[in-house]
């Protein structure tokens, strides 16, 4: 058998296997999206079949109406605002701190790193009450501040640690040669490191966006007006255990709610494919 055909066979096998695995992975999502077009009382009884026997947009119409006089349009705008600003803050601040902890020598570095890790270890459900007390003291209740401002201060150890890990993968010679060229530490960060950690920043942006988008606990406590609710909190209202749930509308609005994250992923993953990181590392 010639080399060409064996390579072709390999490619076909690759695609078949990956596509099949992908189908298993994506099945629940497909199920959610397709079920949202079934009449709401048919979703559970026909949960075994993927394609609706009877297509309807009722769930979207009904779900979009939203709560307390505000439609999901409002909730989506709120979620966008919160997620974008908080993500921006997270990226900028975490990159700074990560650079310091990974590349610079200074007093108290070990302690800082320990504290960074410790912020990953306390569950949000426990901190939420003491945090509420403090934010109330700052007069932040009823505003978006608690859901945005802290993120400008690298309070999520995960992102600091993630970016640190990437900076660790960049050869140290690059910093050294920049220093010899007369670059300050600040210059090194902005001119050498920052361009090289774009994949890490993209990855972080995707995570941060999704986490902020899904966070309903802080919205529950700090948003006290119906028109300020983000999508995640609004979605919670579709299901109340004792009074029954509208499963169709839940699925319809859940489906819509993952659309932004999906689009963002599809746009940004390109920069992961193209591998910006490899381009400067020859030095």
């Amino acid at each position, binding site marked *: 058998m010639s080399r060409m055909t064996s390579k072709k066979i390999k490619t076909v096998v690759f695609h078949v296997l990956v596509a099949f695995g992908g189908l298993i992975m994506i099945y629940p999502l497909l199920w959610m999206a397709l079920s949202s077009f079934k009449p709401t*009382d*048919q979703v*559970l*009884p026909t949960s*075994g079949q993927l394609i609706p026997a009877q297509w309807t947009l009722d769930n979207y119409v009904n779900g979009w109406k939203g*709560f*307390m*006089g505000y439609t999901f349009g409002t909730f989506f705008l709120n979620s966008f605002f919160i997620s974008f600003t908080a993500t921006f803050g997270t990226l900028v601040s975490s990159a700074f701190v990560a650079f310091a902890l990974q590349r610079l020598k200074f007093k108290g570095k070990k302690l800082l790193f320990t504290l960074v890790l410790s912020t990953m270890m306390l569950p949000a459900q426990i901190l939420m*009450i003491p945090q*509420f*007390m403090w934010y*109330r003291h700052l007069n932040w*209740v009823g505003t978006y501040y608690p859901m945005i401002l802290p993120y400008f201060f690298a309070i999520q150890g995960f992102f600091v640690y993630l970016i640190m890990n990437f900076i660790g993968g960049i050869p140290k010679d690059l910093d050294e040669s920049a220093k010899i060229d007369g670059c300050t530490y600040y210059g090194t960060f902005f001119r050498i490191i920052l361009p090289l950690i774009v994949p890490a920043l993209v990855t972080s942006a995707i995570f941060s966006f999704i986490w902020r988008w899904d966070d309903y606990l802080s919205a*529950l*406590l700090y948003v*006290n*007006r*119906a028109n300020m609710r983000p999508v995640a909190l609004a979605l*919670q*209202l*579709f*299901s*109340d*255990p*004792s*009074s*029954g*749930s*509208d*499963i169709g*509308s839940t699925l319809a609005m859940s489906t819509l709610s993952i659309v932004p994250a999906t689009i963002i992923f599809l746009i940004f993953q390109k920069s992961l494919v193209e591998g910006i990181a490899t381009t400067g590392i020859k030095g």
Partner: protein
Amino acid sequence: MKKLLSVLLAAMMLLAVVSAYAELKVGTYDPASAGNVELRFGWWGNQKRDAVTLEALNFFTENYPNVTFNPNAQNWSNYWALMSTYASNNDLPDIMQQDYAYLQQWVEAGDLLDLTPYVESGALDVSGLSDSILKSGMVGDGLYALCAGVNAPSLLYNKTLTDSLDITVPDNMTWDEFEEISRKIYAARGIGVAYGEGNSENPLTYYARGLGYNALWDANGVIPTAEEMAGYYERLVKCVAEGWMFDTDEQANVSTTGDLNMHPLVFGKTDDVRTWCAFAFSNQLAAFQAAATADGIELGITAWPSANPQASNYMKPGQFFSVTTDTKNPDLAVAFLNYLINDPQGNIKLQAERGVPANSAMAVEIADELNKLDATYGTAAAYLAIVAENSSPIFPPLPAYAGTANDEVIKYLSDEMLAPKPGMTAEEAGAYFVENVNDLAANY
């Protein structure tokens, strides 16, 4: 003469309904005099409740444009987490929905306003509420909550199934009759009973009342003896051993994680994962029936089984409305409460979604309207009329430790005793129950 009077009365009522638009039943305080104010109103529920409540609020603001509302609706678990957080900061909404199980504890924490002065001054009209319903909102001598809708424990069952097996489910059946029916259905179709709802104090209270006590517990601890409580657990062990009552594993397989749309009564592909009945409350009938319709099931409603159903059963305030001590406009809040309880137009907007209106005269007055909106309303109301004749006054508000006892003792024992192999004997369970609950009561 009597007939004439009733006709006249009916005509007057009709007139009242028609003219209600101009004048809402708000008591003696005129909300228009409050100036431009905002009232905060918190409740738990789903989209349906949200929509009907909002309509009632809008109707109020149409009449009193100087009042605006800041509504805050959450689902059950988020609601209580949020409200206790607000309470810690003295920042509760002016009016909040309350639950019978929580009332005592919220009053003890000093978060609810005593409404007695408003009743005495006439600002709050409670003349439409029956004595027992009014009392259910009282803690000590104070009135802290008004009933938003009346409820009763209800056994919802698959009437389509029982009809097909030629089984009649009697009203007020005893526990023995219930076992008999369950065995028959299990033998014929393999359809069982899920007693997972036993994770709350409700079935235990029901059992204790069947023994002749008024309640399961009070501030000092458990009322029945350890031997009597052992009887409750003995029953569970026996039923599980007979096969028709789900053990914890079978329960987990159909576990609904609280969502009634997935309750085995109304959902499940095969008979072995279905049940013929659910231990529920009457205001859940509409939601259960909606979920059952897809499978072509018609639901019946009757009382929970007990050794003595007339002693066990009770009319329960489904939910309450309370004015909180954090309100800055108590007069206005009370006027609004008056509207929620007594106004026929407002209650048509509310669609009896929280249960049959507590103001019984008004409930009769608007029954036709409500029937038009929800076909199950009539069934639930008819059942409640039966319960009214066949029940005993409700137990006092639960002691403050009840919630903790629920989590730490009742759930634990129910897990142990419904297990495929029970973790202890019924005697041990009864003793464990009394000892641990009394311990909680003493140290709370």
